[in-house]
């Protein structure tokens, strides 16, 4: 269905090619997952499928790409719209119209379908993706998960043979992600739709994958094969695969269900060992919210929330899309005043602080880290951050070296990958060493090595007496690093306690290891490894 033959691609002005001699065939009805480190060219590979690379982006492409027998050399993206449905990383930026129903019909209008056909397909897709209650809503009022579903629906109405998705679940909460993936699997199984998707959160997509394409990103050839084979020695692997390798399971389990069947002996070996209950850090109160309510128009984003954050704590704020997580963070950062209640950070109300004082007390990395960056190059960005906050020149650059080593300083921030941008923004925010650090979805677009670096960094920061509050959907990140978890629902706090208890007792938020080894409260592969090797379990 999709065939790449000896494809190499170089962006205009780039020194080295992004794709080198790629040969790849994806058969009809296959669900193929593209994995690889941050910045390895996964997005470029996906965009080459419908010809956006190179027709839209420019650059030099050699070799040939054919989809359903049509070559992208002869057919520009618009002529492939009835064959390939493309959903980008940021669905909100791809919306052309302004209400859900019009957006679903847009591609069909361009294809010139008869009005009654359009009407029927729109209804079908509304039901398929559970969007029927949103049909008249303006797109701007939808939550992230709803937008993602509308974006998928908008390409599905054209009934393409191939669906290409770039990180379809990275912005979604675990439940919404399951839902999207389940509908994708159904399209693959029942209709023979070919799906090619890139995703960093492998733990979510691997159970559904038929084949995996590993893009190493260092110029070495792609590794293509059935999911189990590629995963056996892939440098990027979800916790489940790590656990399988640790326990020596063969074949490697890719779903929790398979793993539980094999996990009997492991559970028996671990019997008696228990992860030590973490001692909750008893630091000073770094920030507090006292019955804080925030309303946007008629919608209550936060409803009488009382929370305190202590130094040394890493607090994960979880909850479904639109439950008020980001609002909570923006309150702590003093972006806008609450409708009622009191926010105190380091003894003062953050809204009243001048920008310069604010950054030395609280640092917020927003969901789209790119908005923090507007220098011409990485080096300039670091220099101006030093200048703005009155730091020793070179502090930010040194911090960047710790967060993500080896980022070329002459690169423009816009040309960085999502993960590299996040690293840069993190360095800029961390440089003045604010006692309170706020992170909104820090692992969006981050690969496993990047995540591991982030985990180490956060643990170090907490050890040095910073309070860290992060809003996240990434349960594996919470399992690895959080000391406390807060669950929000409709702007109210519904759970607040040690991360292990909160996370393991929720079917939605439990990490893979906990699911496999339930009812014991193991969270990470590292804990299991230490227990097996007979070393004292760390807290």
């Amino acid at each position, binding site marked *: 269905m999709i065939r790449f033959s000896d494809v190499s691609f170089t962006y205009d002005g780039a020194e080295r090619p992004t794709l080198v001699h790629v040969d790849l065939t994806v058969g009809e009805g296959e669900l193929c997952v593209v994995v690889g480190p941050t910045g390895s060219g996964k997005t470029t590979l996906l965009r080459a499928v419908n010809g956006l690379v190179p027709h839209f982006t420019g650059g030099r492409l050699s070799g040939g790409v054919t989809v359903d027998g049509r070559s992208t050399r002869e057919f520009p993206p618009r002529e492939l*719209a009835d064959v390939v449905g*493309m959903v*980008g990383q940021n669905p909100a930026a791809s919306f052309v119209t302004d209400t859900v129903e019009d957006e679903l019909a847009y591609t069909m209008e361009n294809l010139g379908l008869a009005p009654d056909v359009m*009407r029927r397909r729109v209804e*079908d897709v509304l039901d398929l993706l559970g969007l*029927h*209650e949103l049909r008249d809503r303006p797109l701007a*009022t939808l939550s992230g998960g709803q937008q993602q579903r509308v974006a998928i629906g908008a*390409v599905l109405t054209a009934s393409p043979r191939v669906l290409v998705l770039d990180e379809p679940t990275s912005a979604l909460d675990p439940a919404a992600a399951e839902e999207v993936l389940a509908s994708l699997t159904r399209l693959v199984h029942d209709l023979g739709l070919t799906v090619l998707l890139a995703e960093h959160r492998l733990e979510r997509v691997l159970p559904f994958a038929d084949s995996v394409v590993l893009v190493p990103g260092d110029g070495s050839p792609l590794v293509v094969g059935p999911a189990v084979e590629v995963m056996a020695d892939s440098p990027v692997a979800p916790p489940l695969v790590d656990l399988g390798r640790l326990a020596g399971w063969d074949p490697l389990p890719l779903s929790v269900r398979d793993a539980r069947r094999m996990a009997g002996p492991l559970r028996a070996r671990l019997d008696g060992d228990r992860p030590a209950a973490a001692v909750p850090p008893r630091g000073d109160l770094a920030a507090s919210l006292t019955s804080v309510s925030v309303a946007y128009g008629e919608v209550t984003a936060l409803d009488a929330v009382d929370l305190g954050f202590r130094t040394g704590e890493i607090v994960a704020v979880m909850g479904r899309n639109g439950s008020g997580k980001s609002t909570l963070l923006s309150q702590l950062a003093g972006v806008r005043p609450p409708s009622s209640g009191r926010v105190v950070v380091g003894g003062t109300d953050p809204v009243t602080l001048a920008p310069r004082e604010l950054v030395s007390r609280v640092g917020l990395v927003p969901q789209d880290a790119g908005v923090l960056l507007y220098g011409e190059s990485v080096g300039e960005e670091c220099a101006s951050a030093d200048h703005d906050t009155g730091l020793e020149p070179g502090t930010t650059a040194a911090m960047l070296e710790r967060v993500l080593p080896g980022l070329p300083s002459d690169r423009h921030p816009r040309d960085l990958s999502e993960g590299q941008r996040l690293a840069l923004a993190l360095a800029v925010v961390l440089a003045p060493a604010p006692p309170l650090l706020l992170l909104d979805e820090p692992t969006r677009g981050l690969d496993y090595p990047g995540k591991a670096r982030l985990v180490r960094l956060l643990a170090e920061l907490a050890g040095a007496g910073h309070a860290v509050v992060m809003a996240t959907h990434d349960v594996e990140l919470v399992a690895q690093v959080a000391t406390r978890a807060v669950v929000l629902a409709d702007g109210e706090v519904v759970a607040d306690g040690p991360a292990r208890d909160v996370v393991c007792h929720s079917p939605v938020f439990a990490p893979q290891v906990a699911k496999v080894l339930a009812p014991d409260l193991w969270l990470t592969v590292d804990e299991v490894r230490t227990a097996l090797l007979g070393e004292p379990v760390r807290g």
Partner: protein
Amino acid sequence: MAGAASRTTNPILLLLIGVVVAYVVAARRSSAPWSRSIVVFLRLGLIVVVFRVVLVIIFGNRLPGHVLFTLPHVPLPSWAKGVSIGGPVTAEAILQAVVQGLRLAVVLLCFGAANSLASPYRLLRCLPAVLYEAGVAITVSLAFAPELVVSIGDVRDARRLRGRPVRGFAGLRGMAVPVLESAFDRSLQLASSMDARGYGRRVPMSRGARRWASGSTAIGLLLVVGGVYGVLVAGSLPGGGVPFVAVGAVLVGVGLGTGGRRTNRTRYRPDPWGMPEWLVAASGLVVVACMVTAGLLGAPGLQFVVYPLGPPTLPILAAVGILVGLAPSWVAPIDRRGGAPFDRVPVRTGRVVPAGPGSRVDVVAPGSPTADEGSTGSGPADPAGVVVSTSVPSHLLRPSPASRPATSRPATSGVRPGGTAR
């Protein structure tokens, strides 16, 4: 209404127009995000009035009359003779400035109202196929303005988080680049998305037909331009230029029509154009017609004169004409699209919401499937409300349904089973 406003300087008439427009908007706007644009335009109008008055006070339109107060006169070099700074300020001058400002403000308000009542995307649906692509370019650029406001807010927040000034000149300078950059970025993303979704697909067309289309359009346009010149400059062309305009217009029409066949696009649920729509359009025309007639008849009071100083008179015909503009507030169909900003208010099953004669009449579905089940008593009675995500869209099962005639409209607008039980 804007046309009417630009024809008068009578403050009473202007205020009347403003009130009528505001009332229509209040009665008929939906709660979609674009509905708030009238507020922005209202503010802009007020700024215009104030700015105008301040300008008159400082630079002066030195009308003789009742002197209110005198500013110190700043002598200017002789080459700036026409301009004066300071000097006596008269009541007449200020009044004139207020009225002129008011006229501009009311015109702005009318545009704001149009923006509030219909999203630009809906207006796009009424365009003929040939002009569609030009229309998309315009609406996308119209959407650019609100995007810009949002992105200014984002950049302000981000700058604050970076510890940079957000106010004053330094703040403004630092913000311009990132705001424009993000707007540019967004345009690129939008363009690539539109490309990937088939915007601008062409139907293959013979070379001759293409040449005929562009040739006839070009020649037609030339004829129209020449003809208009003939109309304006009497005696320069035989027949006063009118035949040229006519022939030119026909040629342009043919050219656009042929060209339009190249774009093969259809429209999803086009807006019906029925009695209410005719009435709305007609009421607007009546307003302008009354104004123009009043002007032609030389009705006193249409132009407000500051000499002698006194209350303006009220031209009856024009005032009545403006009041006709109120008509849309009850004849216009209620805009259900865009709906409530968050979940639609659940309406009881089976209740029919009349939306005015000639427009769509829908049965509003209940807010949640559980409520519906509760009313019917038995579970699987509801074909659409229950989560159907386990089924697969039928069009995906059959690869090329475009060629098949559709059977009937899907069951969104049918009375629900069991719904009438309540």
